């Protein structure tokens, strides 16, 4: 059976007590990063509303990258990765179709995450850098990028921690 992810190689050396803690700490860190991202965004929102005669208006388009990233995070982390491994044998009508659907959903989730980051960078360039606003307004544009990068990191941490734990369980059963 082909291994899907590269980082499976070195994780099984960790003691099992650390693995449990890694899962807990990773989940806490992921929640912290997620909330940190949204608070940075809220900070930019509040700053843009309290700033007098601001040259750029904080519109709905600034909300879109964060919403896309949140949606992508939910989609990516709700997929059980054992579904991806199930293709090839078994029932050709059941297993193969399920793996294909799981791959498609995973692709959509990762595309949403990457699209959110790319969209925030595009908004930063179009709305803030190209018109040449001053530093305090430029900060509002950067909050968007910080938010999406934080959501991406939270998603990666959560995904990594959960799926590596699953692989360790799998190895443990085999041994």
């Amino acid at each position, binding site marked *: 059976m082909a291994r899907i992810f590269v980082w499976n190689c070195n994780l099984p050396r960790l003691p099992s007590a650390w693995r449990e803690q890694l899962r807990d700490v990773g989940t*806490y*860190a992921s929640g*912290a990063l997620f*909330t940190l991202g949204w*608070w940075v965004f809220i*900070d930019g929102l509040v700053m843009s509303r309290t700033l007098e005669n601001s040259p750029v208006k904080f519109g709905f388009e600034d909300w879109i990258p964060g919403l896309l990233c949140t949606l992508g995070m939910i989609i990516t982390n709700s997929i059980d990765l054992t579904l991806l491994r199930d293709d090839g044998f078994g029932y050709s009508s059941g297993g193969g179709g399920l793996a294909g659907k799981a791959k498609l959903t995973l692709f959509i989730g990762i595309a949403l995450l990457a699209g959110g980051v790319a969209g925030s960078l595009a908004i930063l360039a179009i709305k803030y850098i190209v018109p040449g606003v001053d530093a305090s307004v430029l900060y509002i544009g950067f909050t968007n990028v910080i938010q999406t990068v934080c959501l991406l990191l939270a998603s990666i941490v959560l995904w990594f921690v959960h799926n590596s734990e699953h692989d360790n369980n799998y190895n443990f059963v085999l041994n």
Partner: protein
Amino acid sequence: MSAGVKTIVGLSVCLACGFLLSILSCALYGNWWPLVVVFTYALAPLPNGLFGRYVSSDPLADVGSSVADFGRFLTSMLVVSGFGLPLVLAHSGIITTPAMMMSIGGGMLVYGTIIVYGTLFRAQSDF
């Protein structure tokens, strides 16, 4: 037994100091926005308490660990919100920087008291 009583007295003094700091951060500046922080810290142990109990009832079920993970995620969200709210309020000039520091300190005292009390209580119930 006397050590346990001393611990409980010390923890309750910490809790009272935390609430005092939080209320002072509002009252000294006549601005009651930082009081919301107390609610986030008071609610923070709730998800772990609720969802963690679910795991111990059925340790073999695979659903339990993901429910507990959701509880950890929510706890972490509430704790970071307790830090984020005063920082954002201070950054936008709604509250002053000393009020922000007092609010964060009070919130950390309240939350730390709850956490320490929870771990002590759990250690006692194990025996």
